[in-house]
């Protein structure tokens, strides 16, 4: 198990390195990176300062080392939109809000997808099965911003149950979390349904029935415990959707998270912040995948010793 974790940690480091190279390269693809990094109207003095700061007068591999060195010290440059604020501070200040929303969205997605997936497998081809598919499909086929606006229109404007935007109380979180989480329900539920069908058809479920185990225990203990393993591998992918989904949803609900920030930064051509968000999002997603893999190894005994 220890060796497994060490191996996975090393893989994670390599992936992070790759991300840094990609981000570094993208900024330099179009000739003078200052054209991408700085607004057109930047002053000559500013351009000089950046040239020295990023070591742009040096060969490419040296530039990369400078970039990495700065990054490791947490220096991703200064925001242009909010002069004097460090780009990383801006992003980290909001990361908590985004993660909070993603966590609630995840809980919502699981809370909906698990019972729907399990029930539609148990009652395959029944009305429950159909209804489950319908709910899931709606969430996946309607765009985030559209659901968000419709929600605001119904629950905030008409019913006046929930606040339209901002952050503060739990009520503020409900709509954006549902919008982000709902999208995930379809994929997750389908995975749970198909792996439940497989489990329910297995010999070990038959043996449990032969032992006289009750149907409830068959479903939730014997079948679900196995069926939950496959969807777990999807959690890594799902985390990236949750993070990416935050971009539109946070904007619709003016949720003060990284997604909202990056949209503002793009509009203002604040490249330092955009670049920092790319690296922070990538790091978060990679670390989540690492956590999922380790969790997976704990849940599935067959992986531990391989």
């Amino acid at each position, binding site marked *: 198990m220890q060796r497994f974790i060490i191996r996975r940690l090393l893989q994670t480091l390599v992936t992070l390195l790759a991300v840094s190279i990609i981000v570094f390269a993208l900024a330099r693809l179009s000739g003078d990176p200052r054209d991408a990094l700085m607004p057109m109207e930047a002053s000559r003095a500013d351009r000089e300062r950046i040239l020295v700061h990023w070591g742009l007068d040096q060969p490419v591999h040296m530039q990369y080392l400078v970039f990495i060195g700065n990054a490791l010290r947490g220096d991703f440059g200064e925001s242009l939109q909010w002069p004097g604020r460090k780009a990383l501070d801006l992003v980290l200040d909001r990361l908590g809000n985004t993660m909070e929303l993603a966590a609630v969205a995840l809980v919502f997605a699981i809370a909906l997808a698990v019972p729907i997936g399990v029930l539609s497998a148990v009652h395959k081809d029944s009305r429950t099965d159909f209804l489950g598919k319908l709910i899931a499909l709606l969430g996946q086929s309607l765009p985030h911003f559209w659901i968000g606006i419709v929600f605001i229109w119904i629950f905030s404007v008409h019913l006046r149950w929930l606040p339209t935007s901002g952050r503060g109380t739990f009520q503020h979180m409900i709509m954006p979390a549902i919008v982000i989480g709902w999208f995930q329900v379809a994929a997750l539920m389908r995975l749970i349904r198909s792996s439940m069908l497989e489990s329910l058809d297995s010999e070990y479920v038959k043996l449990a029935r032969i032992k*006289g185990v009750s149907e409830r225990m068959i479903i939730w203990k014997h079948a679900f415990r196995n069926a939950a393993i496959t969807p777990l591998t999807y959690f890594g992918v799902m985390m990236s959707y949750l993070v990416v989904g935050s971009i539109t949803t946070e904007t619709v609900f003016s949720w003060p998270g990284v997604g909202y920030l990056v949209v503002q930064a793009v509009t203002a051509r604040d490249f330092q912040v955009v670049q920092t968000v790319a690296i922070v999002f990538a790091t978060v997603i990679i670390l989540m995948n690492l956590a999922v893999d380790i969790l997976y190894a704990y849940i599935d005994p067959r992986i531990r010793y391989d």
Partner: protein
Amino acid sequence: MSNEPTLRKNTTQRANGNVILDVKDLRTYLFTKKAVVKAVDGVSFFLRKGETFGIVGESGSGKSTTALSLLRMEPKPAGRIVGGEIWFYGENILDKNEKEMRKIRGSRISMILQDPQTSLNPVFTIGNQVSEAFTVQEGRKNNQGTLLQRVIDLLRKVNIAAPERRFSDYPHQMSGGMKQRVVGAISISCAPDIVIADEPTSALDLTIQAQYLRLLREIQQTTGISIIFITHDFGIVAKMCDRVAIMYAGKIVEHGPVRAIFNHPLHPYTHALISSVPRMEARVERLFSIPGQLPAPGEMPAGCRFAPRCMYADDRCHKEYPPTFGGLSEHTEHTTDCWRLEDPTWEPKSYSR
């Protein structure tokens, strides 16, 4: 179409005494999208206390479906028991509801599934799965200490070395033979009256097969339970069983004491099956095999199901299912479904070997 047995000589078809399970005209059909598969189509047999009863037949003849039907576990959702009676200690199993069936499964009738390698749940330890067999039937009245001790004793009973260490193993850490023993242990955990043993079809490994047979013998010697033994191999039946039923395409075509059938098979199919068993002393290289194959589910012959492959078939065989005939006088329980037995002296000829 349950035929009253026609007496060939002075026979009585049903014997009394210690019959604990009496299956009458059982029909389990599988309603698939393409066709209605009559996997079990009017099967009758009985089981005495303490005996080993074999069910032998080719792959797809309906053996597993028959066995699962006894536990009311016909393959869902396609499978349904559409007729018959299963009398178990004077009560018809087909009248029980699901809750009553859960009390019977495991504690009174249990089964070793055809594939013991995959019948253990990969995410629970062996100890967990064996002790579950106790707690499901008895509730949680045992304290953890005695429960643990009972599981260890049980594992020892099926010859698992160092059971106190094996207890916390997961199935993937055990060899095939050991998993088979664990499944065997689970099947006898609650001292059932009947264990149904569905022999692995792909028992390629002869050592594992030999272990399995030894395990069953041990189980029977230590507990005195009745065993229904399902296999392809008439040679193993001859070694293991007291009585046997030969199944073909959802029907039992011949039924009786193993000795009688082995020495004097009356049904052409049984005769062919037995001719295909290698005899140790003869050391035959090529085995006799029956030309043709089981009829496909959609194209069940109207008459005798074996007719397309039978060298004795005539017109009537193709049109009408034969009645059940009794056997030779000294074997009062021997019955056969074949038109040829209208002639009381008829016997299938020896195939050249």
